[in-house]
């Protein structure tokens, strides 16, 4: 019996797998981060999370801890050097957890460390065994598997003897490894260094860098895995989001152009347009650009597409960057498209936002999150050009490439509307994104003999023999219709 017990004591040994390409990982439970790191943080090792003030490092660390305690049955210890206990509690409350409850349930232990230099005199040799003992005591109290040290660098302000402090920190990180706990150590970003005190020298297993930039009064958060010993990881900068649901990272897919190319076709919702698209409509999972000057009917065409998709029972997501959902619904009702029943049925969801509210990356991240939550098969962004006002040319291209890439990876058919500034000009914004588009439909208004006439043509549509005609259309109270061939005004725009 005893022998049995002994061997069971080392569960870790039983689970130990032969040296494979990847080390064991501990999930953070943070959406996106576990994907970038291919499973989470290195189990039983310290990870350094660095960033400037307000970059979200404490929130990331706390999320790791709380998720461990609540989702992964891994109790945790928070050793915090932050003075404000109430702030910690409210950060955790913002994640939807009650810190006192977690402490009571022995899932989390917190030790608030305060070092007041003014009341400390230093003389002669010392070590930080007191800190080790406190940490050890807290780890034992809850049987912790996760430890967060936030922000241990504060010790440099509290203690005089740098040499002792550095050698003790080195010992501390080694000790943490010996305890087998998965640790997150937060640190302040330094000048020319990852951390102000060069902690990256001691914690060499994994380093995550958080960045918070404000450009043109628009803030953007980014995360980068600088280092991850013994593991593959994404090396890009990933936008991340801090909102009501906590922290989430947007993993940018490979951009390797390995999307499936479904042969299935989906109706545009306008029979005569389907006809122009070799009789069958768009390809599923493709990306469609609808461009035109103001009032040419872009939104109407998109509404037809949404309506048709909902009729097929597909889930549709519509991002509005110009109108409110109510305005949109009313306007579409005026041309005989009633989208409200689809909303009521849960098939259609609108997300309206002001483009200027956040930076591109934040928009991208939040759209990504909405897509992940709603799992649509059709997505409309109306108009995508409004997003272009919040970033530079290169940023916009990068952001849209990533968004479209993600939608394609998920085989989501996407329609983007684009507002052109002038009648015949193909705007630079459009050329920015046109190469990413599978199908490009141009809408135009013409004055002919005192009449205002609407026209439409397919500029391109990959993988199908599409019509090159400019077709006239009208917006009626029962939708967009193209008058019979007699009313056509074929015209070569190019």
């Amino acid at each position, binding site marked *: 019996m005893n022998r049995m017990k002994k061997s069971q004591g080392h569960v870790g040994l039983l689970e130990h797998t032969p040296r494979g390409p990847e080390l064991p990982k501990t999930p953070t439970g943070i959406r996106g981060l576990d994907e970038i790191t291919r499973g989470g943080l290195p189990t039983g090792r310290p990870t350094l999370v660095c960033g400037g003030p307000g970059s979200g490092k404490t929130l990331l660390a706390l999320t790791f801890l709380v998720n461990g305690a609540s989702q992964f049955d891994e109790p945790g210890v928070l050793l915090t050097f932050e003075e404000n206990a109430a702030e910690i509690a409210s950060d955790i409350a913002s994640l939807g957890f009650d810190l006192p409850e977690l402490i009571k349930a022995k899932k989390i232990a917190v030790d608030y460390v305060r070092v007041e230099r003014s009341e400390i005199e230093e003389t*002669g040799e*010392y070590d*930080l065994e007191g800190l080790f003992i406190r940490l050890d005591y807290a780890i034992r109290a809850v049987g912790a598997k996760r430890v967060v040290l936030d922000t241990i660098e504060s010790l440099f302000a509290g203690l005089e003897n740098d040499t002792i402090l550095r050698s003790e920190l080195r010992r501390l990180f080694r000790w943490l490894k010996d305890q087998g706990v998965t640790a997150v150590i937060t640190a302040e970003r330094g000048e020319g260094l990852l951390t102000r005190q060069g902690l990256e020298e001691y914690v060499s297993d994994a380093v995550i860098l958080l960045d918070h930039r404000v450009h043109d009064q628009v803030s953007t958060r980014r995360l980068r895995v600088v280092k991850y010993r013994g593991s593959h990881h994404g090396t890009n900068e990933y936008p991340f989001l801090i909102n009501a649901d906590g922290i989430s990272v947007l993993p940018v897919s490979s951009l390797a152009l390995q999307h499936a190319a479904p042969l299935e076709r989906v109706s545009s919702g306008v029979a005569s347009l389907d006809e122009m698209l070799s009789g069958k409509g768009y390809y599923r999972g493709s990306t469609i650009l609808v461009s035109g000057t103001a009032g040419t009917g872009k939104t109407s065409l998109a509404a037809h597409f949404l309506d048709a998709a909902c009729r097929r029972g597909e889930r549709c997501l519509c991002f509005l960057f110009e109108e409110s959902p109510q305005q949109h619904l009313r306007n579409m009702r005026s041309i005989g498209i009633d989208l409200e029943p689809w909303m009521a049925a849960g098939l259609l969801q609108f997300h309206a936002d002001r483009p200027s509210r956040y930076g591109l990356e934040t928009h991208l991240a939040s759209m990504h999150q909405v897509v992940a939550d709603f799992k649509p098969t059709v997505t409309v962004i109306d108009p995508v050009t409004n997003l272009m006002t919040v970033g530079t040319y290169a940023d916009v291209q990068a952001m849209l490439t990533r968004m479209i890439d993600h939608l394609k990876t998920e085989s989501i058919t996407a329609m983007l509307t684009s507002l052109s500034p002038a009648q015949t000009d193909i705007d630079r914004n459009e050329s920015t994104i046109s190469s990413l588009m599978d199908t490009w439909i141009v809408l135009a208004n013409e004055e002919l003999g005192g009449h205002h006439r609407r026209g439409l043509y397919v500029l391109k549509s990959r993988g199908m023999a599409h019509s090159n005609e400019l077709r006239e259309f009208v917006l009626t109270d029962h939708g967009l219709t193209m008058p019979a061939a007699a009313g056509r005004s074929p015209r070569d725009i190019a």
Partner: protein
Amino acid sequence: MQLSEGGIAMPSPADQAYQLRLYVAGQTPKSVLAFRNLKQICEEHLQGRYEIEIIDLVENPQLAAGDQILAVPTVVRRLPEPIKKIIGDLSNTERVLVGLDLRER
């Protein structure tokens, strides 16, 4: 500290009782040295009016948080107030005296 008619009278340190705590982590050369140094300084400067309590954190780890102990050895001057801390093996007598407010900085 008392208010007298002549204004604020700071009682001279010579009148006050010193309540000291020495935090150590086991019987290490550093902790032994610190205790010896502390004892000697107290005998010299605070004879008859001091009290040293030794707390071994290896035995009582739960006591570390209360006085915010990180470094060992640490001497905590509990009385007279305010609380003062001296960390290290107390090998520099001058600094210990400054730390205990027995000498001007």
